[in-house]
């Protein structure tokens, strides 16, 4: 079978077919529409912008229109890249071979609210904040809470298998999706749930659990066109408490004690290392007044019924004090916690080695690492980053966070984040390659410490993707390749993403 390892450009004929299938007004070829959908906020090789710009943007409104687009893509052998909010930090929505950019934002309808069975069924182009505004009068809540909460979109959350700030209480995206409607790369429309096909059943043992296969694919296996989601009672009470420590080691031990407390209302435990506190003291009004003796911070948050939250707060405070934590006050705790739902509002700037301020974009490394390895990975990642800063001078170390990562419980593994500023305007091919090499070193360290490359964004970028076959070396990546070829025989859906061009490596190439 002929496939595409070098994809075809989108021809005028293909564009005419798209216009006929879904209507001319939903097919955009102007430069503005294409430029706006070329990159995401993550650091980007701006000197190679044109290589990633899609040929055409389509804005379908239904599963049937998505199906028609994918059938046309197969007919003309052209790539299709699905895109939701474009807020992902791992380039899942960035075209690697131009092609058709399938923007799902017009599929933003709420299809059914079932208060009896506590589900809501939506199209994937809806934003969580808007959904929760709709749900609020009914006293229910969809608790998927990324740092991009006001601007990211449900389809993107499913495509990346997103991580939620309050996931240790409510679960993450994959735990909150009950069933899906998916359009396969060849255009068939299927309904998938937790085994069987019942769209509102959370736990079934009938057949394969195919739903999870389509969560976190970065749009390489299908396009989600409908999702039935879990609803919770809107929390009666929230309480955030931030504690300061005189050393990272003390804060690390306290993190372990807090996260294993067994408190059912505990939604998050977040450890800030010394470099993060140093960075915040430089640039964040809440942390600037902190005395120098505070070297590390642990943030916690409780959600639930008020009586439970009050009781849990007392236990939390007791544990923090017993592990040398000092409460950082109501203003910092409540204010910083509220701002964590929206980290994308932060104006981004960084410092050159001489302290001068320049605009910088934000790299957020997001490995999943088990608790025992956190101190070692912290040391290695900082050593790597500082070495590149010293040599190239256009990166800035913004410190590290360690977020509880296990759904419904605080212990176990952590989303380990090092934030690095990058002065994009100064990038050229040499410094971009240096950046990719920095990432590669970080990824190697992750794998050496039994970690996974990504906890929440995906492993799509250069510096990550080439290590997927390494992380999944015990047969997992071979299976991924077989599944990709089976479902996408012409390699039209987000081709080459997740290093899956290897799925077609032994095929004949038909440009």
């Amino acid at each position, binding site marked *: 079978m002929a496939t595409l390892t070098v994809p075809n450009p989108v021809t005028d004929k293909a564009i005419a077919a798209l216009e006929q299938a879904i209507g001319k007004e939903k097919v955009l070829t102007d430069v503005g529409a294409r430029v706006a959908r070329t990159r995401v906020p993550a650091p980007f090789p701006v000197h190679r912008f044109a290589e990633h710009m899609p040929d055409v943007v389509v804005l379908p409104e239904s599963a049937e229109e998505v199906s028609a687009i994918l059938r046309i893509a197969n007919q003309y052998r052209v790539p299709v890249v699905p895109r939701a909010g474009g807020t992902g930090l791992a380039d899942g929505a960035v075209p690697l071979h131009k092609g058709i950019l399938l923007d799902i934002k017009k599929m933003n309808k709420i299809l059914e609210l079932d208060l009896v069975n506590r589900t809501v069924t939506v199209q994937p182009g809806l934003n969580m904040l808007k959904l929760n505004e709709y749900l609020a009068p009914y006293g229910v809540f969809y608790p998927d809470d990324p740092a991009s909460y006001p601007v990211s979109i449900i389809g993107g959350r499913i495509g990346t298998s997103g991580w939620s700030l309050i996931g240790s209480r409510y679960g993450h995206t994959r735990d909150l999706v009950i069933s899906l409607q998916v359009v396969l790369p060849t255009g068939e429309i299927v309904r998938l749930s937790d085994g069987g096909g019942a769209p509102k059943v959370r736990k079934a043992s009938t057949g394969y659990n195919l739903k999870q296969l389509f969560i976190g694919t970065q749009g390489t296996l299908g396009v989600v066109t409908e999702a039935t989601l879990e609803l919770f009672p809107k929390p009666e009470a*929230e309480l955030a408490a931030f504690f300061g420590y005189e050393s990272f080691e003390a804060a690390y031990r306290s993190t372990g004690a807090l996260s294993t407390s067994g408190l059912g209302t505990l939604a998050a435990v977040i450890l800030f290392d010394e470099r993060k506190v140093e960075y915040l003291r430089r640039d964040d*009004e809440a942390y600037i*007044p902190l005395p120098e003796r505070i070297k590390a911070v642990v943030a916690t948050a409780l959600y639930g019924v008020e009586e439970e939250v009050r009781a849990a707060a007392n236990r939390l405070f007791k544990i923090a004090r017993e592990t040398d934590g000092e*409460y950082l*006050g109501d203003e910092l705790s*409540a204010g910083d916690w509220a701002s964590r739902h929206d980290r994308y509002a932060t104006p981004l700037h960084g410092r050159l080695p001489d*302290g001068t301020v320049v605009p910088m974009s934000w790299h957020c490394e997001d490995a999943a690492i088990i608790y025992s390895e956190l101190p070692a990975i912290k040391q290695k990642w900082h050593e790597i980053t500082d070495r590149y800063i010293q040599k190239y001078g256009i990166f800035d170390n913004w410190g590290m966070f360690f977020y509880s990562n296990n759904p419904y419980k605080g212990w176990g593994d952590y989303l380990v984040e090092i934030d690095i500023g990058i002065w994009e305007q100064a990038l050229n091919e040499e410094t971009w390659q240096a950046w990719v090499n920095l990432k590669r070193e970080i990824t190697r360290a992750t794998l050496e410490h039994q970690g996974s490359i990504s906890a929440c964004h995906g492993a799509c970028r250069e510096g990550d993707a080439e290590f997927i076959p390494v992380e999944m070396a015990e047969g997992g990546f071979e299976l991924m390749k077989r599944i990709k070829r089976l479902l996408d025989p012409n390699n039209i859906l987000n081709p080459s993403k997740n290093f899956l061009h290897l799925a077609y490596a032994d095929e004949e190439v038909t440009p």
Partner: protein
Amino acid sequence: MKQVRKGVVLRREDLHVFEVDPALMTRVPQDVTDAEQTRIVRNRWEYLDWMHRHFAHNTLLLSAVTEAPAHGPGQSAH
């Protein structure tokens, strides 16, 4: 304007506004008026209050529920 630590100045005590030392801002100079700064700060607090209400019916503070002090180290009432 008062230097509070290396690279940071306190610009508005009334609104708790700190800024990067202007000496470090030569590549990206910013000129924000006091009125505009007041608007930004107040809108930010309003937004964060809204965010609390959006996620829960009631926001509890640790100092109200336990014997924890309301003000942390380095903090003062605003």
